[in-house]
């Protein structure tokens, strides 16, 4: 089984907080008592979670750029990894592209038509769901590999 390195841990932590703060943009954590759990009240503060989402998005983009360059330079072998990597590249690209446009939208002014903003919101959520499903699939796959030795 592949050994987890520090980069994987940073990826994991970043993806966890970016997803959590992303879902917190919807008014659900207060409704469903999650923000009532001691220590999690901040999940109901949209401005805090908005900032958090931006900060982790910055870290995420740095990690993705680092990984792309690292992969190109050191070319760690295709084969089995390649399929998973292509899916990951599509999802990450989608998330970064839609997220970046949504960040631009949040500056003063009306740079995009409203229909496009609605599409960007939905696509950003869809890419996030795809990432979660894909992550779950990879987790099961790794467990199976571990069990089969």
């Amino acid at each position, binding site marked *: 089984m592949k050994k987890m390195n520090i980069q994987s841990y940073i990826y994991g932590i970043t993806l966890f907080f970016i997803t959590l703060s992303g879902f917190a*943009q*919807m*008014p*659900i954590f207060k*409704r*469903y*008592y999650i923000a009532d759990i001691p220590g999690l009240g901040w999940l109901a503060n*949209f*401005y805090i979670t*908005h*900032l958090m989402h*931006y*900060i982790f*998005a*910055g*870290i995420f*983009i*740095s*990690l*993705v*750029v*680092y*990984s*792309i*360059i*690292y992969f*190109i*330079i*050191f*070319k760690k072998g295709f084969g089995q990894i390649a399929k998973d990597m292509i899916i990951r590249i599509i999802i990450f690209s989608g998330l970064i592209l839609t997220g*970046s446009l949504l*960040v*631009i*939208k*949040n*500056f*003063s*002014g*009306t*740079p995009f038509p*409203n229909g496009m*903003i*609605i599409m*960007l*919101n*939905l696509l950003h959520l869809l890419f996030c769901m795809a990432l979660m499903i894909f992550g779950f699939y990879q987790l099961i796959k790794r467990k199976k590999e571990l069990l089969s030795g």
Partner: protein
Amino acid sequence: MTNKISRRAFLKGSITVAGSVAASATGVSAATALTKEKKEPLATLIDISKCIGCEECVYACQESNADKYPNPEKPYPEMFPKRVPVEDWSQKRDVTDRLTPYNWLYIQHATAKVDGEEIELTIPRRCMHCDNPPCVKLCPWGSAKQEDNGLSRIDSDLCLGGSKCKTVCPWDIPQRQTGTGLYLKLLPALAGNGVMYKCDRCYNLLEKGEVPACIESCPEDVQTIGPRSEILAKAHALAKEMNGYIYGEHENGGTNTIYVSPVPFDELNNNIEKRDGQAHFEKVENKMASGNNIAKAMLIAPLAGIAAAAGKFYKAAKEDE
């Protein structure tokens, strides 16, 4: 594992780093161009000293926007969990002393002292139509929209009534009506809770070249509408003339509703009723500024990734020697 670097890999790495820097720089200039392109919005000037509190604007607003008001059908679907509040104003349509889904403008009362004399002031209150409105920018679905002329409005066909716009609004302006809107067709028990309503500055009248109903109906010409720079110039001239004060120019980073008062706004704020559905006159910091400052700083994120990769590459190349 030791990473071996060949001459070919070295060249490839250098080209990749250079390309990434160029792509990052292009992204920066595209973002700058998009954020700088901006048309001048329309703003309204509200001269508080002229308002006599006749409520003509309130009734004109109700009449002009009557066809936009909700007509919810009872019984409302039960929502989960039980704490989700049912907000029903459909039987209280005649309430005019606060904002409701059926009343987007109300008259606020304040007593204050001017030159030692106690006077009563009446103030029309409604959406401020912020320059960078959090209700629009933070709506998770894009149900709230801002138009090029500076007005912000909520699309009642798309809004799910989560009330996030009210939570992030510095003045708690939008008001919810349960039992109407898109959420009824999705998962009414589990998500959404109606539709949010607020002043849309009579966008449909503006589209026809007419002025909003509250401005048209005012017998005292309390409100004036025009390009923001002209309205600000008028507001400053008026404030100078009456030795008065301005509110809305800088609040929340600037709004398209500029109040001019003969009394300081913190004094007015201390003398107005502030219940739910009633707006304050407090100083308001730019709510979107922190996020947007971080967004600007985020432009270095790709560069940080490039720097980290270059560091790794340099280290590997040195080890290889």
